[in-house]
């Protein structure tokens, strides 16, 4: 596999296969500890993202490989005016695989065009972040033991949140999925994705404005941050902010096996008091991200264990 730009670059079968490998890595880590010996990953982070970069680097180290790279564009030659294409031509000669984060949308597509080695999109602006979606899918699979017949609630900023857009695109390909979108009018799920991914396939969804009215029916609750800068005025933000904060009270009517997720970083949209609830999976989700990235690196380097 030459590139992963978007979660929909992967077929459902490929996703299932990746998640199976990730679960095998979790069960048998020693089996994989030298799988990528003498292989080199470049983490090219043209904008800072400590968690994603560390996740990729940990993944490669846990596979026995090595890592080179930079963590912001100031420490790359792009600060001297080098084009992305030239940077990739050069780095592509040094390493075996590239994971790239860039503030501009579509930058990894340019990278993939100029590299003879596999390129993974580690986030391009607010566009795509496919390995986050793999982390999300692995988290759902590990907690629910299935990726079909689920009611998935998404709450908060559904308009600009790339994680929820990608997760809908990925989950919409499984059977028996229902989506519940919980957001203020200002931050509703984009119409074009609803039409393209859900209505065109006859997938059930509903849009509500509070989580209380749907909490009992959810199998998964995916929280996102409602940012003040998305609102036209402070009064609207203050009026709505508390509506989209998850607290232990709001979880009272929820299912006992609800999976609570969040792509992190969390600001205040999930009360710290929820952290002790066994249904809170957002820290496990980040760890799952590392395992999913390990499975992806193996697949892209065509390493069979």
């Amino acid at each position: 596999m030459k590139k992963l730009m978007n979660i929909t670059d992967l077929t459902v079968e490929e996703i299932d296969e990746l998640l199976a490998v990730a679960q095998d890595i979790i069960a048998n880590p020693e089996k994989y500890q030298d799988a990528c010996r003498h292989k080199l990953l470049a983490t090219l982070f043209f904008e800072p993202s400590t968690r994603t970069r560390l996740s990729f680097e940990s993944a490669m180290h846990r596979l026995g490989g090595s890592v080179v790279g930079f963590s912001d564009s100031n420490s790359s030659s792009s600060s001297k005016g080098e084009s992305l294409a030239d940077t990739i031509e050069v780095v592509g000669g040094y390493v075996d695989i590239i994971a790239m984060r860039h503030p501009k949308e579509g930058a990894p597509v340019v990278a993939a065009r100029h590299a003879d080695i596999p390129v993974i999109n580690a986030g391009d602006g607010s566009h795509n972040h496919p390995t986050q979606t793999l982390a999300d899918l692995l988290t759902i699979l590990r907690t629910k033991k299935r990726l079909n017949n689920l009611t998935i609630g998404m709450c908060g900023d559904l308009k600009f949140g790339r994680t929820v857009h990608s997760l809908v695109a990925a989950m919409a390909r499984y059977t028996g999925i229902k989506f519940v979108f919980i957001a203020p009018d200002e931050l509703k799920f984009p119409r074009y994705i609803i039409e393209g991914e859900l209505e065109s396939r006859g997938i059930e969804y509903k849009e509500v404005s509070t989580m209380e009215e749907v909490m009992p029916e959810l199998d998964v609750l995916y929280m996102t941050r409602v940012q003040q800068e998305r609102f036209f005025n402070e009064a609207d933000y203050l009026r709505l902010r508390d509506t989209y904060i998850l607290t232990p009270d709001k979880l009272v009517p929820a299912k006992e096996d609800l999976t609570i997720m969040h792509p992190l970083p969390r600001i205040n949209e999930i009360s710290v008091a929820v952290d002790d609830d066994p249904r809170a999976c957002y820290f496990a989700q980040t760890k799952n991200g590392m395992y999913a990235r390990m499975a992806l690196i193996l697949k892209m380097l065509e390493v069979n264990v």
Partner: protein
Amino acid sequence: MIIGQIKDGIVLDHITAGNAMNIYDVLGLGKLDCTVALIKNADSSKMGKKDIIKIGTDLNIDFDVLGYLDPGITVNIIKDGVVAERKKLTLPERVVGVIKCKNPRCITSCEREIRHEFMLTDPEKKIYRCIYCEQQAK
């Protein structure tokens, strides 16, 4: 009005009425030394009104670009005064170097000498998206 026949060249027929000037500009026909006739609002039994462009030379035209601009066009290749070949255009799968991505967050807004490229994602609605950021062409 009578426009003479051409001996060797190209006739772009069935252009949507009012679209000929745009096609004239995009194909750079103003730079040609040969005869170029642009006919606006000609009567058409099929279309009511149509535009026609006659080019008096065997020009190398990018049919993908032409198909994107106006997929209903019929291209007639004229040789020795007769139609040697007739092509019906369709919407091209890809359009390169014609539309510019207007998304300021797209990599095309800052990467040097990158070619703007769009892909047909919805043939029914004629929707093209940037291959980099997936922004819809406007």
